[in-house]
């Protein structure tokens, strides 16, 4: 089965700074997504990362705060900009493969703490 990795696995950042999270898959995928999981809560979709075009953001999430790149079919980045303590969460990427029967598989997540 394919491997999904995320870097960093965790980080502690200061208020006002930005962090870029990477998601790498070892095979080509059709869809890549970014989710946020706030402490003790469920997952919420931030955006769909589109290859070669701007990401599609869900309600409540904007490009200026969460810029996303997807330069190819195996890699995506999510940046959390101008961070505040409220951004402390686990950020997870997920992928769907072509012919993958609409199943999403998740990376190991990045635990972000903002002080």
């Amino acid at each position, binding site marked *: 089965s394919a491997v999904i990795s995320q870097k960093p696995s965790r980080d502690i950042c200061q208020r006002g700074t930005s962090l870029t999270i990477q998601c790498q898959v070892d095979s080509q995928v059709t869809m890549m997504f970014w*989710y946020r999981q706030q402490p003790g*809560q469920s997952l919420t*979709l931030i955006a769909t990362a589109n290859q070669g075009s701007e990401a599609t953001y869900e309600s409540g999430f904007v490009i200026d705060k969460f810029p996303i790149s997807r330069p190819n079919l195996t890699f995506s980045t999510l940046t959390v900009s101008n961070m505040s303590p409220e951004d402390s969460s686990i950020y997870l990427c997920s992928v769907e493969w072509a012919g993958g029967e*609409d199943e*999403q598989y998740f990376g190991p997540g990045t635990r972000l703490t903002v002080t």
Partner: protein
Amino acid sequence: AQTVTQSQPEMSVQEAETVTLSCTYDTSESNYYLFWYKQPPSRQMILVIRQEAYKQQNATENRFSVNFQKAAKSFSLKISDSQLGDTAMYFCAFMKLAGNMLTFGGGTRLMVKP
């Protein structure tokens, strides 16, 4: 918009016994997918089982099975012969047939006791 509700924040079960986790959802769609994901303390989200709404037969995967009641919009997960490694958060999730967005329930924390 779809909503997914898990009414049991926490549950516990003795090792080797059977436990059922509840999930209800609300949608106006007629065709869709339902999933159960497991998130152990390592925080890795693991797909446990999936159900297509157009299939009447309940999905099974080894010790995991579902009871899908479409009319009642209910999708429960049964774990048989519970093992210590089943200790985790379990999330029920909904996906429209022609969409990709997963809508998650609030989760149920399951503790398997030796």
